[in-house]
C-alpha cells in the first residue's frame, strides 16, 4: 500500500524523504486553512450581534461552567442547585454530563496561567468553533484510514468543516454538549479503526480513553456503545474474527466501561441498562469465538469442531436468553425512553409527550437532509458503494455506520448530527475517487497494465467468497475489469470543471444556510426596517434584566420549561421547571396552572410560592414561537397527569379548530395563559380592532380580566410579559370580590394595600 500511494503521490512531488516532508507540510497548511475556514464560517452571529450564548440549553451549560470556575471542581461535582425546580431542587452535579464544562474550565485556567485573563463567557462562546476545527482534523484522520487516496482525507476535512449539518449545532455561542461531542465521536471512531487495523492495545486504550471522555460529554455516547459491538459482531458473522479484533474489542470494552462508570450520571448503567447490553453480549461472544479458534488450532478433528461450533451457538443463545430474562425480571433496566422511542416511533407521542413536544425530536423530512448536506447527500451512497469494492474491516464499519446513522437521522432531526461525519467521509471518498481519475495528467497508452488499487483481487476477498468465485462474481460487477484511465483531455477537463463548479456551489450553499438559518442567537431577534437596516429586538434580555435588577434574589418565577434555563442564566432567579425535564409531574403542574381557570391556578401557584409568572407573547410582533402556540403541549402534558381536570378536547372548538378569537372555547378563554397573553392587549388598538398578528385573528372586543395576578412588567414589543402573583387579600375576601369592590369605589385603601405588598417582597 505504502508503495502505491507514494507512487500516485510522487506524480506531483519529489521522490523519497524530502517528498514526504513536502507533502506533510502541504497537508499541514491545508488542514490549518480548513480549520480556519471552519472556525470563520461559524462566527456570523458574533459579527452580526455580539459574543452571546445562544438559545436555551447553552445558558444552563454556561451557568454550570461559571459555577465550576468559581467554586472549583469538587464543589461542582456535588452541586445541589436549589434555584431550579423549586421547591424540589436538582442534584445538578450528579445529573449532568460534565465533559463540556470541565473542558472549558481547563481552557480557562490554562489561559490564566499564560496571563491571558479571557472572560469565561468568550471561552464558552468560542468553544464550539474551536472544536469544529479539531473535528475537521479528526475527520481527515478517519478518512485517511479508509482509503489510499491522499486527497480523500483533505476533502472530508473540508466537507466536515463547512457542512451545515454540523454547523447547525456548533456556531459560536451554541455552547452545547454536541460542541465537543462530535469531535470526540469522530476521533473515537478513528482510534477504533486504528486499533482494529493494527490490533494494538495502545490504540484500543486510547479509544477507550476518548470513549470515556465522550461519555462524560454527551448522552449520545450510546451510539458508540452500540455501533462498535455491532461492527465486531458483523465482522464475526462474516467469518473475519481475528486476534486483532479480539485484542482491540476486549481492551476497549474493559477500559471503556470502567471509564464510563466514573461519570456519576452514568454510574452503573453500563451493566444495568439494556442500552449497553449489546456491548456486553458481543464481549462474551468474542470470548467464546476466541476460545473455539484456539481450540481449533489445537485439535484438528472435524467433528469436534462442528461440536464446538454448536456449543458456541448454544452458549450464546443461552446467555442471550439469560439477558432477556434479567431484563424482564427488571434487574436490568429496559430501554430508556428517549432511546426506545428511536425504535418504536409511535412510543414517544403516546407515552412521553415531553420528548415528543421538542421540535428537534421530530422526524426529518427530505428537504432537511438536502438543506444540511446539499450535494453530499447524493455523493454519500456512491461512497458507500465504493466501500464494497475492497471490503476490508474498516469499510464494513463505514457501511454499518451509514445505514444506522441514516435511519436515526430519519427518525429524529437532531440525530442528523451523527449522520453528518459519515456522510462527509463517504462523499469525500467518492469525490476523491473521481478527481484522482480525472486529474491524472498523462494519457494511458492502449492496453496499459492495470493499476493495482483498481484490481479487487489484489486485496484478497474473504475465503468464503473465494470458494464461490465461480458461482457468483465475488466482487462488484462494476470493477471486474482493470482500470485503464481516461484518454481524452476534453473529458478530463469537462468533468474536473463540472465537479469544481459543484464544489463551489456547495460552498455557497453552506455559507448561505449558515448565515440565514443557523446564526440567530434566538435570544436576540433581528428584524429588517423598511430602509433595509437591521433592527435588533431585545425583549428577552430587557425582561430578564428587569427581573434581575428589580425583583428579590429569591423571587420564584414560573414559566413554561423552555425558558427555565434562560431565566436561571440571565435573570438569575429561581424557577419551577426548566429544560432539564427530569420531573414530568412538576412540569405537568405548571402546565395545569397555565391551562386552568384562575380559581384553580391560584392555589397551585401559592403552594409553589410563585412570585412572578413569565410568559412569551408574539401577538403584537408576529413572533410565532410564543406560548399560545406551545399551549397545546402544556395542555397535553397536564392531561397526562390529570386527565379529568385538563382535557385537550376542551381547547378545540366544536369544529376541531384551535382558535383565540370570539369563537375560542370558554375553557380557552378562561385559561390563565390566554388571559395573561391578551390582558390589556386591546387597549393598544382602537376599540374592537385588536389583532393577533401570529394567529391572524381578530380578538374579542372585551379583553380578559385578571383578578389573582397583576401585570408587573411588559417588554417593549410585548414579547415577554411578567405578572406578579397577588398576596392573599388582607380582608380575607376572594380576589374576585376584592376586584369587584375596587371597581365599585376606588379609595386610597387600594394604594395602601399595594404599598404593603411592595414592602412585603422579602
Amino acid at each position: 500500500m505504502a508503495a502505491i500511494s507514494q507512487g500516485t503521490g510522487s506524480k506531483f512531488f519529489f521522490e523519497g524523504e524530502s517528498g514526504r516532508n513536502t507533502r506533510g507540510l502541504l497537508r499541514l497548511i491545508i488542514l490549518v486553512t480548513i480549520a480556519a475556514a471552519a472556525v470563520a464560517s461559524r462566527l456570523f452571529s458574533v459579527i452580526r450581534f455580539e459574543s452571546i450564548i445562544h438559545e436555551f440549553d447553552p445558558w444552563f451549560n454556561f451557568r454550570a461552567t461559571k459555577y465550576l470556575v468559581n467554586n472549583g471542581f469538587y464543589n461542582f461535582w456535588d452541586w445541589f442547585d436549589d434555584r431550579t425546580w423549586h421547591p424540589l431542587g436538582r442534584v445538578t452535579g450528579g445529573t449532568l454530563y460534565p465533559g463540556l464544562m470541565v473542558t472549558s474550565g481547563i481552557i480557562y485556567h490554562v489561559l490564566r496561567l499564560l496571563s491571558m485573563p479571557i472572560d469565561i463567557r468568550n471561552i464558552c462562546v468560542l468553544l464550539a468553533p474551536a472544536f469544529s476545527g479539531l473535528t475537521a482534523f479528526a475527520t481527515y484522520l478517519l478518512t485517511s484510514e479508509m482509503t489510499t487516496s491522499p486527497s480523500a482525507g483533505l476533502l472530508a476535512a473540508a466537507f466536515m468543516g463547512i457542512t451545515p449539518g454540523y454547523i447547525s449545532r456548533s456556531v459560536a455561542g451554541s455552547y452545547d454538549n454536541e460542541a465537543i461531542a462530535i469531535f470526540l465521536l469522530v476521533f473515537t471512531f478513528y482510534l477504533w479503526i486504528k486499533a482494529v487495523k493494527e490490533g494494538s492495545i495502545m490504540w484500543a486504550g486510547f479509544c477507550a480513553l476518548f470513549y470515556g471522555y465522550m461519555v462524560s460529554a454527551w448522552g449520545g455516547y450510546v451510539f458508540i456503545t452500540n455501533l462498535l459491538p455491532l461492527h465486531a459482531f458483523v465482522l464475526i458473522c462474516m467469518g473475519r474474527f481475528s486476534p486483532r479484533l479480539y485484542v482491540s474489542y476486549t481492551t476497549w470494552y474493559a477500559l471503556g466501561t470502567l471509564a464510563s462508570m466514573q461519570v456519576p450520571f452514568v454510574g452503573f448503567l453500563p451493566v444495568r441498562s439494556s442500552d449497553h447490553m449489546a456491548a456486553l453480549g458481543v464481549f462474551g461472544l468474542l470470548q467464546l469465538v476466541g476460545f473455539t479458534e484456539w481450540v481449533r488450532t489445537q485439535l484438528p478433528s472435524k467433528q469436534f469442531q462442528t461440536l464446538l461450533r454448536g456449543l458456541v451457538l448454544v452458549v450464546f443463545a443461552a446467555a442471550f436468553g439469560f439477558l432477556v430474562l434479567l431484563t424482564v425480571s427488571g434487574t436490568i433496566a429496559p430501554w430508556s425512553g428517549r432511546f426506545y422511542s428511536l425504535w418504536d416511533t409511535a412510543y414517544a407521542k403516546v407515552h412521553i409527550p415531553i420528548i415528543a413536544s421538542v421540535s428537534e425530536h421530530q422526524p426529518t423530512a427530505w428537504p432537511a437532509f438536502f438543506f444540511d448536506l446539499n450535494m453530499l447527500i447524493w455523493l454519500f451512497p456512491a461512497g458507500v458503494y465504493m466501500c464494497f469494492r475492497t471490503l476490508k474491516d474498516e469499510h464494513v464499519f463505514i457501511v454499518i455506520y451509514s445505514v444506522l446513522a441514516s435511519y436515526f437521522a430519519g427518525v429524529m432531526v437532531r440525530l442528523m448530527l451523527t449522520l453528518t461525519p459519515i456522510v462527509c467521509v463517504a462523499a469525500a471518498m467518492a469525490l476523491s475517487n473521481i478527481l484522482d481519475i480525472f486529474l491524472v495528467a498523462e494519457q494511458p497508452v492502449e492496453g496499459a497494465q492495470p493499476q493495482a488499487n483498481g484490481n479487487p483481487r489484489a486485496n484478497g476477498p474473504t475465503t468464503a467468497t473465494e470458494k464461490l468465485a465461480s458461482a457468483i462474481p465475488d466482487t462488484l460487477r462494476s470493477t471486474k475489469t482493470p482500470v485503464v484511465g481516461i484518454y481524452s483531455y476534453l473529458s478530463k477537463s469537462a468533468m474536473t470543471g463540472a465537479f469544481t463548479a459543484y464544489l463551489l456551489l456547495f460552498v455557497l450553499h453552506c455559507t448561505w444556510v449558515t448565515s440565514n438559518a443557523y446564526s440567530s442567537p434566538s435570544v436576540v431577534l433581528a428584524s429588517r426596517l423598511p430602509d433595509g437596516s437591521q433592527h435588533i429586538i431585545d425583549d428577552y434580555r430587557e425582561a430578564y434584566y428587569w427581573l434581575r435588577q428589580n425583583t428579590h434574589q429569591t423571587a420564584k418565577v414560573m414559566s413554561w420549561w423552555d425558558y427555565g434555563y434562560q431565566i436561571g442564566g440571565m435573570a438569575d432567579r429561581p424557577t419551577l421547571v426548566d429544560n432539564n425535564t427530569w420531573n414530568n409531574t412538576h412540569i405537568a403542574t405548571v402546565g395545569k396552572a397555565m391551562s386552568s381557570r384562575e380559581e384553580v391556578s391560584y392555589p397551585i401557584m401559592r403552594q409553589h410560592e410563585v412570585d412572578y409568572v413569565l410568559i412569551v407573547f408574539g401577538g403584537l410582533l408576529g413572533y410565532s414561537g410564543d406560548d399560545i402556540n406551545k399551549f397545546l403541549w402544556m395542555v397535553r402534558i397536564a392531561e397526562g397527569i390529570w386527565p379529568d381536570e385538563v382535557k385537550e378536547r376542551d381547547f378545540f372548538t366544536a369544529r376541531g379548530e384551535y382558535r383565540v378569537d370570539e369563537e375560542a372555547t370558554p375553557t380557552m378563554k378562561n385559561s390563565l395563559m390566554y388571559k395573561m397573553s391578551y390582558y390589556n392587549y386591546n387597549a393598544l388598538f382602537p376599540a374592537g380592532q385588536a389583532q393577533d398578528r401570529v394567529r391572524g385573528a381578530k380578538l374579542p372586543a372585551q379583553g380578559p380580566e385578571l383578578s389573582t395576578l397583576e401585570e408587573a412588567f411588559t417588554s417593549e414589543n410585548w414579547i415577554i410579559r411578567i405578572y406578579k402573583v397577588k398576596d392573599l387579600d388582607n380582608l380575607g375576601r376572594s380576589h374576585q370580590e376584592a376586584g369587584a369592590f375596587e371597581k365599585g369605589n376606588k379609595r386610597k385603601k387600594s394604594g395602601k394595600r399595594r404599598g404593603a405588598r411592595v414592602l412585603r417582597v422579602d
Partner: protein
Amino acid sequence: MRIPGILAAALLPLTALAAKKSTGDRFNDYHSKQVSTLASIKIDDVSYGEMTKAPRDYAVAVLLTALDARFGCALCHEFQPEWELLAKSWTKGDKKGESRLVYATLDFADGKQTFQSVGKRTLSSPVLLVFQPTVGPNAKPDGAPNRFDFVTGTDKAEPIHAWISRHLPDSPHPPLVRPINYVKYAVTTTAVLGGVTFLSVAWPYLLPVIQNRNLWAAISLITILLFTSGHMFNHIRKVPYVAGDGKGGLSYFASGFQNQFGLETQIVAAMYGILAFATISLALKVPRMTDPRAQQIAVFVWGGIILGMYSFLLSVFRIKNGGYPFFLPPF
C-alpha cells in the same frame, strides 16, 4: 313507565324502591341480552333515549361511532373490535350484573339526532359516553355524561377499561381478558420450524447469495436512499401518498419545508439514486473502458445526467424552500 319515573323524580327518597322495581327490569333485559350475545347492544336514536333516560339505577357506556365506509373513520374501524372485546370480557366478568353497566354501540347511520344532541359533528373519531346511574346505591347527581374523545389516537381496549373503571369507582371492574390467538401461535411455530428446515436444506445454495457483495451493496444502498429521502417521516406522520392541487390536477410536491408526500419522497430517492449511480459509473466504470471514443461518450452522458439531475433537484428544492437563491442550468 313514565308516571313512576316522574314520581321518582319528584319524591325520590320515598319511591326509591318503586323506582328500582320499575327500572330494574330495564337493566335486567339489557343485561340478559348482553350476556346472551356477549357483545355490546346495537341501539338507535329511540333505544338510546330509552336506555339513557333518568331515572336509572345502572350505568351505560355508549360508543358513538361511524362504521359506514362512507364516513371513512379509520379510528372507528380500528377501535370497534377492541370495544367488542371490552364489552365481551366485561359481561363475562360479571354475569350477575353486579357492576350494573350496559355496553351499547350507536352507529351514526341509525343515530344522527343523537350525534347532533351530543354536539359531535366530525366523524373522524368515535366518542365514548358513560352515563352514571341516577338512583340506587352508587348514584351520581345526573349531570352530563362523562365523555371520552379519541383525540390522542388510543385504539386499545386497556386504557378505555381503565377510564371506565375510574368513572365507576365503587362497582366491581371485571378484568379485561384478551383471548389467546391459538391460530397465530400455531402459524408462527410452523413458520419458524419450516424456515429452519428450509435454511438447513438450502444453506449450501443460499450461502453464496448471502455472501454476495452486490446483494449487500444493493440492500444497504436502498436502505440508505430510503431513509435519507425522508421515508421515516412518512411512516411516522402518516402523510398522504399524493394530494391533488386545487385545480383538479395532482401536486407531486407538498408546499412547505416541513411536510412532504409519499410519492415526493420516492421521486427524490430516485433522483438521489440516479445521481449516485452516475457518480459510481464515472468513478468506476468509465476508467475501465478500453475504447477511447466510447469512454468519451460515456463521460459526457454520465456528466450530463449528473448536471441535469442535480439542477432538477435544486429546482425541486426551490419549490420547498422559497428563499433558496441557488440554481443550476438548465432547470
